[in-house]
């Protein structure tokens, strides 16, 4: 992750409007680097991305290289994470599975972001009946526990990679809609928006050029935290056999397949789960750090605390 991924839009608004800033790019970058857990989190994410991209190239064995002579072997130098019930190398499988987890996370959160931001923007900007109808729809989706709704969607569409992405995307879209709407409501009343209206800018242009850049901060934070939840959800779906299908390895599915053996072969339970945990933790830590720097409300709370 480079500094360019973080809050560039927030920095741009500085020059275009002279608005009070949520944060500027340098401040975000400096704050993240000086926050040790966040820095560690970002290094872990960088490593994960490299492993995800290179996966099968750097894995010591093939993911589906069955070797029955070597089955259920405890960790050794040649198999640092041990082998599974078919003698496949667990380390290689964990490495290759990183790609699919990150991909599902990114695509599903991307879908949620796109759908949620669009709905939230429209609801918040137009208000009135449009707002009411859209937000009641979001309330309906909120009434279902996240995983239950995802399972129900997969039950209808059939299990697989694409449905997992769609299901997780649908489940997390309402959160983005709410966050977006709340931010839009406060930005809409600002002078620069009224100025844009008065010079005759179209609604679409105002939303794109003036509203969206100014609500970027909470959305960036929500994206990072949602990536954590999306990866957890994918792992849970795959654990239930409703996500990624074999022969493609996935962390959740590895745990599911290994669960009958774990009392004799602990490594089958430990390593895939540890991979999920570390990934989710990294996204959460980075997300929290981003919130500390970017979210103005959180900022004022911190400042209030310091003042007292």
């Amino acid at each position: 992750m480079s500094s360019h991924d973080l809050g560039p839009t927030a920095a741009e608004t500085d020059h275009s409007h002279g608005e009070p800033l949520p944060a500027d790019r340098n401040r975000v970058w400096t704050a993240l680097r000086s926050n040790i857990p966040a820095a560690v989190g970002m290094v872990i994410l960088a490593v994960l991305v490299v492993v995800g991209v290179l996966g099968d190239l750097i894995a010591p064995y093939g993911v589906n290289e069955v070797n029955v002579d070597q089955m259920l072997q405890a960790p050794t130098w040649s198999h640092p994470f041990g082998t599974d019930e078919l003698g496949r190398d667990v380390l290689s499988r964990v490495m290759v599975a990183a790609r699919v987890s990150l991909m599902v996370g990114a695509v599903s959160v991307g879908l949620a972001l796109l759908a949620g931001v669009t709905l939230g923007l429209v609801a918040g900007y137009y208000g009135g009946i449009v707002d009411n109808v859209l937000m009641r729809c979001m309330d309906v989706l909120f009434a279902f526990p996240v995983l239950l709704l995802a399972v129900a969607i997969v039950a209808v569409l059939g299990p697989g990679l694409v449905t997992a992405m769609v299901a997780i995307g649908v489940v997390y879209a309402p959160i983005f809609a709410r966050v977006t709407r709340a931010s839009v409501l406060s930005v809409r009343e600002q002078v620069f928006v009224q100025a844009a209206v008065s010079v005759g800018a179209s609604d679409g242009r105002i939303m794109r050029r003036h509203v969206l850049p100014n609500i970027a901060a909470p959305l960036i934070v929500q994206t990072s935290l949602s990536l954590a939840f999306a990866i957890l959800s994918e792992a849970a779906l795959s654990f239930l056999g409703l996500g990624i299908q074999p022969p493609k390895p996935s962390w959740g599915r590895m745990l599911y397949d290994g669960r009958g053996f774990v009392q004799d072969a602990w490594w089958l339970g430990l390593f895939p789960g540890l991979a999920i945990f570390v990934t989710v933790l990294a996204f959460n830590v980075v997300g929290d750090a981003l919130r500390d720097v970017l979210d103005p409300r959180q900022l004022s709370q911190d400042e209030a605390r310091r003042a007292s």
Partner: protein
Amino acid sequence: MTRFVLTRLAQSAVVLLGVTLVVFLLLQLVPGDPVRVALGTRFDQETYDALRERAGLNRPLPIQYLDYVGSALVGDLGVSFRSGEPVTQIVIERLPATAALALFAVVFALLVAFPLGLISAVKNGSPVDHATRVFSQFGVSVPDFWMGIMGIIVFAGMLGWLPPSGYTSFGEDPWEWFLHLLMPSVTVGLVTAAILTRFIRSSVLEAMSQDYVRTAEGKGLMPRRVVTRHVLRNALIPVVTVAAVQLASLLGGVIVIEVLFAWPGLGRLTYDAVQARDYPVLQGAVLLVAALFLLVNLLVDVLYAKLDPRISVT
């Protein structure tokens, strides 16, 4: 106050109507003929016709929907595609196991989270605070089913203290029931505890930064009394809300843990219904869970408004 309750009631009713629409559409969105799919190799024309007729699939869609809502209102959720038994009965039978799991988990979570969150906030910045924050960060990041698997490895495999999975009914043997309940509920409870700890910490911190706390300190009240008399009273109301919402979401959200521990609750039922393509059961379970969730939220909001008069005014 009455006005507030009525408004919230109306809102919940509208959302619940939306929920029934989503649940109804689940069956319609299944590609192909859901009854044929569900019957699979057990297909015979007579059962097929009977199930289609019973599920009302031969009528126009809007009529089907009205019929679904109407029947649901009087407690009829259709019949299982598999066993032919009424869905309402199947779903209700699973409720106690899930309720026990969810209640135990939330009680455990509160027992852990309350002291941790309070100490962490009062001793803001201390080593205890740091340790607590690490605990809650880990807790919200850990997959609960992985923690469950590690629990099985350690407590069932290595130590042999607890059964790895399964269920014994309370009436049959309360002690066995408790032993089976322990691992799944603590697993779920730890994750919930992490969420609650975070929340209690920030809620207490927020209350401590208020003017009335400064006033209380200024007039020379003992720090302990400031916390018990002024901070806790104000910090706890939102905590009750969040704990109740957690309970509500656990009532329907513990699918993975119920599957892992072979716990015969609603989550396990949902999973089995998906595997068996028993759509009416899936619909019934999902509808019940969502309705419970809305009900708890409504109750919490009303309670909240009663405790804090400012809310019903705005």
